[in-house]
């Protein structure tokens, strides 16, 4: 058997190429493939006929037919890929969304300024070696007053508008609590934690105490509950110069001002001697307040050297140990730094206020990332 001529093969190739080219979709292309390379296809038929050919002819036709088969297969594959692409493009051309439509709403959470500011302050003081101590909101007279060198009926107690708790009925009846033991109070400051800490820890002590405090006072600028942060350093040589160094460093870091204008003034607190108040400068320009610089002064905190009587009351020898304490209002510090005009909305949980003055859930104040962003 002689087999097909070269011309016949060429004609078949031209024919098949044209059919492949002309295939409009995947199904038509598959038809062409079956007709050419399927079991009964034209190219397959020729391949099968190879066996009956003369060896000489087979030797020549074998590679030719194989080449044709491969060529057609490649063409079909290429056409298939092209058709697939075209189909995908056509489909994608149909698949459009209005990307300006709003996303599904997800509630946004936030952190209260008081929490945020306490974390900011903690970050700064932590760097200076302070750790956090805590104590109860409901205090006894001893920790809130007596141990802090407020003698009973001392007029300094009148400086604190104290909330008293109702005396327990059983205590009243047994006479144990009633006249002899003063009623419990809501702590008027965070200072009782100084006492609790000194009575249970040995110096050196460096703590800060953030927390809720209470005074029965309520007007435009006072709420019956507010927040304080207390600081206490006790060792054998810390003096008022360290107090000044520590607080100036803190205020600079907190308000992020380098050229802080400040002054320390003598004042009186029963639990410190000597006592002082720290004022910082501010200025008002076109209604905007700038904190830290400026010629006007505002009081920012109270401080002093821990009173020898307080040390004694905690079992520490004042001839050996000394140190300083300070206290400042957290809410007010938040107001000053973040320009929050009123105190009272702090505790009203108005969603609009929380949204406006709140902080993002993952906005963690750190020294590396910035105390405030």
């Amino acid at each position, binding site marked *: 058997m002689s087999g097909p001529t070269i011309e016949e093969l060429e004609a078949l190739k031209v024919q098949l190429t044209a059919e492949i080219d002309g295939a409009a979709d995947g199904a038509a292309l598959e038809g062409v493939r079956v007709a050419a390379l399927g079991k009964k296809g034209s190219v397959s038929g020729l391949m099968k006929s190879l066996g009956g050919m003369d060896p000489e002819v087979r030797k020549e036709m074998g590679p030719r037919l194989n080449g044709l088969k491969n060529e057609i297969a490649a063409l079909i594959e290429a056409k298939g890929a092209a058709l697939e692409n075209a189909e995908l493009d056509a489909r994608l051309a149909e698949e459009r969304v209005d990307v300006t439509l709003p996303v*599904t*709403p*997800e*509630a946004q*959470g*936030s*952190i*209260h300024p*008081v*929490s945020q500011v306490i*974390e900011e302050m903690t970050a700064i003081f*932590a760097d200076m*070696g302070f750790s*956090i101590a*805590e*104590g109860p*909101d*409901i205090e006894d007279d001893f920790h809130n007053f007596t141990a802090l060198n407020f003698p009973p*009926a001392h*007029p*300094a107690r*009148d*400086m604190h508008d104290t909330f*008293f*708790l*109702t005396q*327990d*009925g059983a205590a009243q009846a047994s006479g144990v609590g009633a006249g002899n033991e003063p009623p419990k109070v*809501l702590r008027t400051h965070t200072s009782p934690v100084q006492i609790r800490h000194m009575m249970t820890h040995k110096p*050196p002590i*460096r703590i800060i105490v953030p927390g809720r405090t209470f005074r*029965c006072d309520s007007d435009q600028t006072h709420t*019956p509950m507010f927040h304080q942060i207390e600081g206490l350093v006790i060792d054998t040589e*810390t*003096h*008022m*110069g360290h107090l*000044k*160094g*520590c607080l100036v460093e803190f205020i600079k870091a907190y308000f992020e001002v380098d050229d802080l204008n400040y*002054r320390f*003034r*003598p*004042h*009186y607190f029963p639990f410190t*001697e*000597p*006592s002082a108040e720290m004022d910082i400068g501010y200025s008002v320009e076109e209604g905007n307040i700038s904190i830290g610089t400026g010629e006007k002064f505002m009081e920012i905190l109270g401080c002093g*050297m821990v009173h020898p*009587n307080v040390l004694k009351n905690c079992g520490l020898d004042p001839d050996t140990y*000394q140190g300083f304490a300070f206290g400042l209002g957290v809410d007010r510090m938040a107001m000053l730094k973040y320009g929050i005009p009123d105190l009272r909305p702090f*505790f*009203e*949980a*108005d*969603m609009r206020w*929380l949204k406006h003055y709140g902080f993002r*859930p*993952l906005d*963690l104040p750190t020294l590396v990332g910035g105390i405030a962003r």
Partner: protein
Amino acid sequence: MKFTVSWLKEHLETDASVEEITTAMTRIGLEVEEVVNPAELYAPFKVAHVIEAKPHPDADKLRVCRVDTGDEVLEVVCGAPNARTGLKGIFAPVGTQPPNVDFVLKKAKIRGVESNGMLCSEREMGLSDAHDGIIDLPEDTPIGTPFAQVMGLGDPVIDFEVTPNRPDWNGVDGIARDLAASGLGTLKTPMPKPVTGSYDCPQAIELTFDAETATACPRFAGRYVKGVKNGPSPEWLQKRLKAVGLRPINALVDITNFLSLDRARPLHVYDADKLVGPIRARMGQAGETFLALDGNAYEVTPEQCVIADDAQVLGLGGVMGGEASGCTEETVNVFIECALFDPIRIAKTGRATGIVSDARYRFERGVDPEFVIPGLELATQMVLDFCGGEASHILDVDVTSHDAQTQDMPIGLVKKLTGMEIADDEMMRILDVLGFAPVRQGDVIHTTVPSWRPDIEGKADIVEEIAHIYGYDHLPLTPLPRMEVIAKPILTERQNQARWGRRAAAVRGLREAVTYSFTDQPFAELFGGGALALKLANPISSELGTMRPSILPNLLAALQRNVDRGFEDVALFEVGPQYKGAEPDEQELAISGIRRSAGSRHWQGKTRAPDAFTVKADALAVLGEMGVATASVQVTADAPDWYHPGRSGTIRLGPKFPMAHFGELHPRVLKAMDVKGPVMAFEVVLDNLPPSRKKASKARGSLAVSDFQSVERDFAFVMDAGVTSDVISRAVLGADKVLITEMAIFDVFEGASIGAGKKSVAFSITLQPTDKTLTDKEIEAVSAKVIAAVKKSTGGELRG
């Protein structure tokens, strides 16, 4: 405490300006609150002459005045009954604002007549409360004289805060002493000269106390002055009192007020003719009452020290005198009291009666015990000067010790406590001017504590004396040295848990609120609280009357406030205390949140309204962030009373640790609080978390992953509707603890097709082989175990 600059200069020789004085005061601890310069404040207001006052044509009570201001003649409409032709008054022109008027005066038509300014009353000028007519000055007052000059108010008034430790600052002499020490001038307070009496004091004094109450009034000095003529005090004294806001009354009263301010020495003057028998300081008796000078009647108690005579209680010693023995214009013979009272007893009496007086204020802070006789001499001299009369000898009943306190201070202590280098001479100078009579002996300064300084009780107080006068501007700026320890966590475990829990709740879309620790008593009772021991004795208002047993009632009140403002979608949480009792260990720390939303419409479909599972997820997120292994918690269908009984639960780690509650709040609770529901809530109580076990190493266990393919199989069972999903999951996971690594419920269905009281539960399991690929046979075997286990524990049937 208010005083005027000229008053200060009676005690302090100085050329300092007002500004220098106030700067020095603040620098040494007398915190200036206000400086009022009347010459500036009152500058626009001058004397004017009413040329003619005639009735207003359209108003009976008004008059139309032609007023000569010195510069021009203006028409002014005036409503005062005393507006008359010829009156000399104080005129406020258009464009000014008198101190006690809350608007700027404008040209205005009053009932058709133009008015160009105002003739002022004393109240409008901020001088007194008198408002029954306009100021009516003597006829010869020159027109155009500034108001401040007419009233003698030229003197700047300084108001400052007296700290409770410095009773001596309640007298102008005490202020002058500290200013002198600060270098502002020289102290020149005149020493009182003794007044020689001409007869024995006819008024007997008795101190009637037992041993326990002897300190109530340890000294009572008195003196009789006969034949006085009480009347107005001299002009200089009246002006001084007026300048600091006191109303002159009569010479005898003005004298005591003056000495109270000038020397911090309260006194009392009795009309001696109204006294019956000896005057007696004693404890009150139950049932006794007296009419005080403030016009109120007070009942006295056996804890209070009274001054009485044979007839009645005359007053509360050191607090307030009584009407019965008060001086009037007709008083002829007087008895002057200068006594000492126990500060603590005075404070208690003051608090119990609510009486606020200059005497109480001074006695409870401490009055100089050695100034009794000098104070009495000063008062006598002033009575004689202003009212005439003849003074008796002094009668002095005195059981005080007169022991002077001494206090030593090692000279190095100033540097040790303050860090300031202060020259020894400067320390000695400061103490000397302050009256401490310092004596240097080696390294110690001996001092004698001045009798007017009850606050000095230790060497630190002497350091303070030197430091506050020397000035805190000199404090060195010393950095706090670093602690030589390895950095350890600054926060305790619980503080860290609170911090992470807070962030986790915020990430879940809740907004952090901070609400009061108090709540309304009925609300507290709804949440298991309201115990007597947690009730405030003196709340701001009844809504804030008790300590909250839970954060929820306050969040709910806040929620409703938001709803009332039109914000229907509320998601709030708080990290804060709740109170089970008044003891320190009865305060818990909780992270609690509430959610309320009707769901909102969106183009992709309605968003899901929160339900019990939303807040369950909140609680689990908070717990998980705090380090609780949430995969091993148990959830039980019980929760406190304030939750919906069928839609709430508790998340526990074993029976001991009920860490969190969650679910829908009880409709009855919401109704009682007037809150629009439904509201979902969760409460995580940090105190109920198990203590974490400290791990020896931070290293994690090795990661075990299998290279063999996992297999998933689905099952569906029909079972009683009451079977809970945890029963199913326990059964499934227990069926083969090695191969079954996951179990997930993907469908729960109840309906008629299943049968009444039944439900269909569909779940998938994941089988993860570790050593070889599973054969069909092995998979079938596990499936069979699962089916058997579920059947056994739930009584359910596999669906065909």
